[in-house]
């Protein structure tokens, strides 16, 4: 069998890594979340539940968390709607084009996250590519005309002049939850695609033949055989999209604007400008518990759904 030295050699380095870079930081975070900070910005090491009480008292935290979950949920649904058909096509119908298409889905993962973020900024901005195209197609002109007419109408009939509509440029595109969802969907769809594709590849093809043989149409075969057998992949892919989006802070930073702020942005500002590490730690810990609980549940769900 393996020697003692070999065993120590393969177990100690990863153990060391986990302790030093995972467990110790979490322990520090845990401690900080019960401390507080003085007005003169000194960390006071008195143990209390004050930070957690603050999180419950101020509605902004719950609201931001809810918005984060809404955004993450939207991303998850969109990523599934985009990722599943692609994975299905690649697994069952792509034939010779499969390798190329697979590569095309995966390639964006190699591009820097930041570059992709700035790309969306360029596309969605008021001087961006999308508005440029609308201008070029003279759709903006028509929208501008409509806008002026409507505002003139409102100025005549509305009891207040604050009611004005703005169609041009299309400003709702950037700096909104919509932009965050769009960018996160773009970034995390490959992560949903991969486990779904893997689960589809695992379905023995003779099951599909058996289903057809027994008189089930392609649609019935999809609903009763392919979909149930790919559920573990769907759960894994959805978990990826949801958990990664929920904790994302770059997308809201780049394209979210004030209305697109997510919970991680608050954490970042508590550790930065606001200089309230204890409160930031408390939020982080809550998020950690939420995510770990979620992973625990989805892992069990995946096990329950898989039959191989």
């Amino acid at each position: 069998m393996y020697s003692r030295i070999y065993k120590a050699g393969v177990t100690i380095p990863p153990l060391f890594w986990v302790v030093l870079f995972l467990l110790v930081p979490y322990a520090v975070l845990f401690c900080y979340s019960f401390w507080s900070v003085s007005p003169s910005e000194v960390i006071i090491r008195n143990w209390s539940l004050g930070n957690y009480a603050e999180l419950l008292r101020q509605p902004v935290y719950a609201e931001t968390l809810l918005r984060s979950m809404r955004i993450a949920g939207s991303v998850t649904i969109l990523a599934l709607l985009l990722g599943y058909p692609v994975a299905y096509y690649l697994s069952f119908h792509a034939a010779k084009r499969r390798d190329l298409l697979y590569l095309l889905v995966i390639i964006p993962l190699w591009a820097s996250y930041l570059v992709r973020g700035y790309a969306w900024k360029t596309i969605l901005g008021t001087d961006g590519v999308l508005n440029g195209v609308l201008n070029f197609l003279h759709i903006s002109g028509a929208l501008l005309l409509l806008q002026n007419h409507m505002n003139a109408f409102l100025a005549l009939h509305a009891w207040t002049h604050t009611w004005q509509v703005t169609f041009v440029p299309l400003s709702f595109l950037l700096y909104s939850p919509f932009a965050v969802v769009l960018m996160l969907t773009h970034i995390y769809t490959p992560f949903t695609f991969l486990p779904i594709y893997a689960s589809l590849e695992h379905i023995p093809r003779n099951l599909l033949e058996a289903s057809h043989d027994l008189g089930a149409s392609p649609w019935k075969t999809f609903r009763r055989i392919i979909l149930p057998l790919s559920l573990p992949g769907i759960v894994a892919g959805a978990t990826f999209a949801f958990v990664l989006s929920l904790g994302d802070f770059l997308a809201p930073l780049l394209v979210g604007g004030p209305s697109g702020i997510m919970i991680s942005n608050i954490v970042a500002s508590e550790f930065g400008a606001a200089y309230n590490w204890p409160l930031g730690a408390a939020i982080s810990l809550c998020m950690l518990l939420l995510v770990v609980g979620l992973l625990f549940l989805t892992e069990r769900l995946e096990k329950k759904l898989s039959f191989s």
Partner: protein
Amino acid sequence: MASGEFLTILGESGSGKTTLLRLIAGFEGPNHGEIWMGDQRLDILPPYLRPVNTVFQSYALFPHLSVFDNVAYGLRAQGVAKSEIPDRVQQALGMVRMMEYAGSAPARLSGGQQQRVALARALVNRPRLLLLDEPLSALDANLRKQMHVELKALQREVGITFIFVTHDQEEAMALSDRIALLRDGSLEQVASPREIYSRPETSYVARFIGQTNLLRAEVRDGTATCGALVWQTSARPGPALFSLRPDDIRIVSSTTAAIGANASAARFHARVEQQTFGGATDLLTIICGNGQALRARLPNPGPLSGSYEFEFHPADTVLVRDAGEE
């Protein structure tokens, strides 16, 4: 083929037997030609519209469905009335004696049990034609023999036409009403097991079904000559190929010689080269004349060594078409 028949498609791997089955089931399309069943053209229908069901080599049971739901799958897919489904499933499971496993997951069953469920799943739809793709090849020898008996009985009971694919000639002999021997995608011979064994049309059939001695003989004046062997034949003059089964060769003992029953029997002297014990019969390799080797199967000959006189009846030689192998 006739309705209610048990036809076996027999062939080596690569002979096209599974392809033929897949063509009938509809998993593959023919390059040319048509497939008809009765007055219904099959090859233009997708698999799910064909009144044909398949038992797959690897069973292909749905892992996420219980045994009951597996069997009910076809009925539900075809929109059979809900009230009718439980009875029909129970009946099908009863036929294969798997009733008490209705709630089990397929993964919990043994190979033989999965096999039975696969059968029930196909039979419950009452197809006009059941295709079986080497369904017994994954089972061990004893279980296989037992399944042979059950399968045959089941086929008689339900009266459905079976097309059974196998590479195992013993299995084919045991099960079939008729055997279709396939070679390189074309039919070599279609006949009952008895006929295909005793009257093979080609040298390939003779060699594939059971063992045989192929005798390349010269026929002249009603006499065939192959090395040391000379016998009477009604074959046309010229070169000819004959098949002689090892079990048609006997040792001439003093008793048979004394009776002299077979005046026309072809007799020859040969040396016993090898003797393989086989229970009821022994297989001998005998060398006659100038190094010509023959195989003979003798019932309980006891240990043999040295030279003996052998004989065979000319009527047991079968003129076969040279299939041009080897």
